[in-house]
């Protein structure tokens, strides 16, 4: 194996980008990344991704939040244990509101944290291999191949109807 090089095929058409992604599986080259300017169902189908695990982060966050909310309300009430209107200091009925709000707040936190962890963010290195056109109207499909096969990979993307850009490593 010679030194590796990475080639990005840039497509203006969603269908073509998706078919290029799909067909890459039957070639010896390795699919590295796909950049899309829009959330695309066709591309996620072509990539055959596993179900996202972000939901579990949200669930765990929500459960933690539910109990933290009650705990916070109980803790603060116990710190200032003044009986008002004959009601118990630690009363579950009004604490439901705090518990409910914390469930939502922590579920949101869990969701964002899950998104960052699962997406591998922040990713400063990823920006080195990036084409600004992918933030405009192009779909970028990045694949890696040995240096000697560079021409073949470029031709593959051209056949699929895209323009290419080579990233030397």
């Amino acid at each position, binding site marked *: 194996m010679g030194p590796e090089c990475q080639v990005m095929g840039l497509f203006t058409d969603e269908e073509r980008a998706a078919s290029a992604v799909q067909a890459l599986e039957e070639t010896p080259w390795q699919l590295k990344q796909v950049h899309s300017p829009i959330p695309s169902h066709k591309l996620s189908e072509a990539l055959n991704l596993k179900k996202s695990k972000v939901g579990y982060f949200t669930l765990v966050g929500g459960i933690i939040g539910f109990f933290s909310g009650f705990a916070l309300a109980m803790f603060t009430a116990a710190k200032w244990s003044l009986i008002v*209107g004959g009601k118990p200091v630690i*009363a579950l*009925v*009004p604490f*439901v*509101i705090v518990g409910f709000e914390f469930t939502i707040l922590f579920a949101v936190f869990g969701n964002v944290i899950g998104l960052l962890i699962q997406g591998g963010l922040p990713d400063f290195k990823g920006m080195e291999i990036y084409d600004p056109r992918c933030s405009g109207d192009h779909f970028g499909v990045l694949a890696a191949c040995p240096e000697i096969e560079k021409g073949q990979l470029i031709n593959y993307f051209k056949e699929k109807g895209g323009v290419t850009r080579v990233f030397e490593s």
Partner: protein
Amino acid sequence: MLSLKNKRLVILGIALIAIGFLAFIIQVAGSHPERAWQAYLINFLLWSAIAQGGLLFSVIMHLTKAKWCGPLTNVSEVFAAFFPISFALFLILFLGKAHVFPWQHMDLHGKEVWLNVPFLFFRDGVALLILYGLGFTYLFYALQLKAIGAATGGRLRSFLDQKMGINPDVTRIHQRMSIFSVLYALAFAGVLSLIGYDLVMALDPHWISTLFGAYQFVKAFYVGLGGMIILASALYLTQGDSTGLTTTHFHNLGKLFFAFCLLWADFFYVQLVVIWYGNIPEETAYVIERTMVPPWNFLAWVVFIVAFVLPFFILLNKNVKTKPKFMMVLSAVILVGIWLEHLLLVGPALSHGSRSLPLGLWDGLITLGFLGLMIFAVVYFLDEFPELKRFQPAVEKR
């Protein structure tokens, strides 16, 4: 097949109605007529709410210009067939006035102006007539877009076909539908609040909760969606894809059901927390009797678990919502839970001071009779309008 031509279904329906009717008669003639009328009141409220809430779905879909519902609006509209029965049941309630209005012999401290039997029956009867009239008018226009020139020979159908004409003006019908859907939605909130105040809250005449009406109509939509899930599943399981129903429809309907499960519990909590904070004896007595004192405290927990906790955790899951068979069972369980919730609301007032739960086999048998009536209404309507069983996109606005 859901049709009157299906003999087994007809026999089942007639048997259910007969069982319910006999059970009711035996109870009324027996030593505890108040128990029969208690079961009757609960069933009248519950089954009417299913019908009223069921039609509300179609109305809301029209108002919000929703497209995701597809053939689900058909399922929703079928429930309007119970309206005449519901009104007749309301009139029959008059016969039980001695048993369902415990405030008749109480000192009401000036509330007599509002709480007296003639005025109550007059205003509630008029209110129901308005609600059902608006519902039927909406339905009349909605059906025109779905049932064009495919007469089935039924008497109701031929009469309506004459009224509808052959070439309806689609734009005009859409306008009329919009008007009557707004009116029905408003009447739904108003009339169900009134019924809730008069037939449920006022049984304990010294207790008031201003939110009680809203609690009632949110609950009505909750059970309406439950009924819809059962009927949609039954249609889908017997007729398959020709109904046009897909997994996505069941998923979305399940999500809406879940949302209204939460909203119902929310309305319960919102009332509870205000009463809890206020801590006024007139208000708290009602809640304490129902949630903290036996025998009712046990029932309160059963209701809370069956109608909220259980569906909440089950419906979090996406896959179960797409399984018609499972959702049918779950909805049925929740409807039983809401039946018990009605018992929790009216029971302590009607069976004052009872040591054990006023609940037994007879109540179940009477309920079966009402189930039979609902089955009969639904199947009759599906026979008159078989279009509602087959999906065809409604005529679009030009």
